[in-house]
């Protein structure tokens, strides 16, 4: 019975440490702030923003399949504009990999499916090398 206070103190310390990140965030404000992504400089992406935000991975997957396996390279967007199904050629001609892809993926903790193991960031290669 004499250890009761010791045990309660232990419990208390555990709760304080366990919830520490919440206290700290409440006191000093969250260090993670949602990235403010620049919209496409061209004004309009290949699909409406909501759709791109929710399902860009599905579209990229479909593009990859069409382009590589079926030699089908042209994509007709919702507004009738025609684009080439190309990550480096189309997506990255507007978006900056580091400022756009990487920031949001880092914020949401999605490390990415290894696109950049092979695909190049054209902005990392200025001036452009033409063989």
């Amino acid at each position, binding site marked *: 019975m004499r250890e009761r206070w010791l045990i309660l103190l232990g419990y208390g310390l555990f709760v304080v440490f366990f919830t520490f990140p919440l206290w700290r965030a409440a006191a000093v404000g969250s260090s993670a702030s949602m990235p403010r992504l620049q919209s496409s400089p061209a004004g309009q992406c290949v699909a409406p923003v909501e759709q791109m935000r929710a399902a860009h991975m599905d579209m990229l997957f479909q593009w*990859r399949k069409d382009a*590589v*396996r079926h*030699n089908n*390279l042209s994509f007709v967007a919702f507004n009738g504009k025609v684009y080439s199904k190309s990550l*480096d*050629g189309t997506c990255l001609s507007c978006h900056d990999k580091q400022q756009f892809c990487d920031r949001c993926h880092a914020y949401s903790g999605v490390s990415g499916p*290894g696109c950049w*193991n*092979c*695909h*190049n*960031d*054209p902005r*990392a*290669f200025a001036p*452009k*090398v*033409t*063989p």
Partner: protein
Amino acid sequence: MKITRKEFLELTGLSVLAAGAMHAVHAVKAEEAARPSTAQADPPKKQMALAIDLRKCRQRPGCNLCSLACHTTHNVPQFTDPRHEVKWIWNETFAEVFPLDQNGYTRRNYTGSPLPILCNHCDHPPCVEVCPTGATWKRPEDGVVMMDWHRCIGCKYCITACPYDARSFNFSDPRKALPRINPDFPTRTLGVVEKCDFCAERLAKGEPPACVEACPEKAIFFGDVLDASSEISIALEESYSIRRKPELGTGPNVFYFL
């Protein structure tokens, strides 16, 4: 005729066994029929091919501009360790490429004039037969043997299957072996097989392969061999040509004029 109990049981057992065996045979046959084969039912409409005029190649001893153009265009890594070498189109000696076509004249005249070799985009590609993931396949519309590097798991079966040594494996990070990267074309990554794809990305834009364009002697013809009026068909019609190891039945589509 009288039948004993023992004989009856034996006969019944044998009949059941035979019926079972029939089932097994049918199942195996059905599976064989369902397996996709490279011997397509309907023949391809087009077959892209390459014909290299070695008479013109010999005008420029030591030339490797085709290889250089290809390798810089496609970010082919330049590993110095010969065991790790990655190549799409490269020079090899006549004795190495055509070991059975040698004679005193070829030894005297062609030794010292290496010739370019590459993937033959075979009619019946063994590499495609063995690929377990479908990462390599023969494109039905133009006969190009394609690769999907996204899907390659690096098992190297295709390397073993190819009788022409046309495929290379990335034993280490290819980006480390690239002095310059062409940003318009992806690199490969560790553990992936690569080879010539007849410049599929350029064909899509209506351009000829990079090697064809780079050759200063215009020694390389490229086109559809199933179209009798194409430049390559006419060239093949006019001069005698040979191919690498045609006796294997792979149907290579790279031709050489000697």
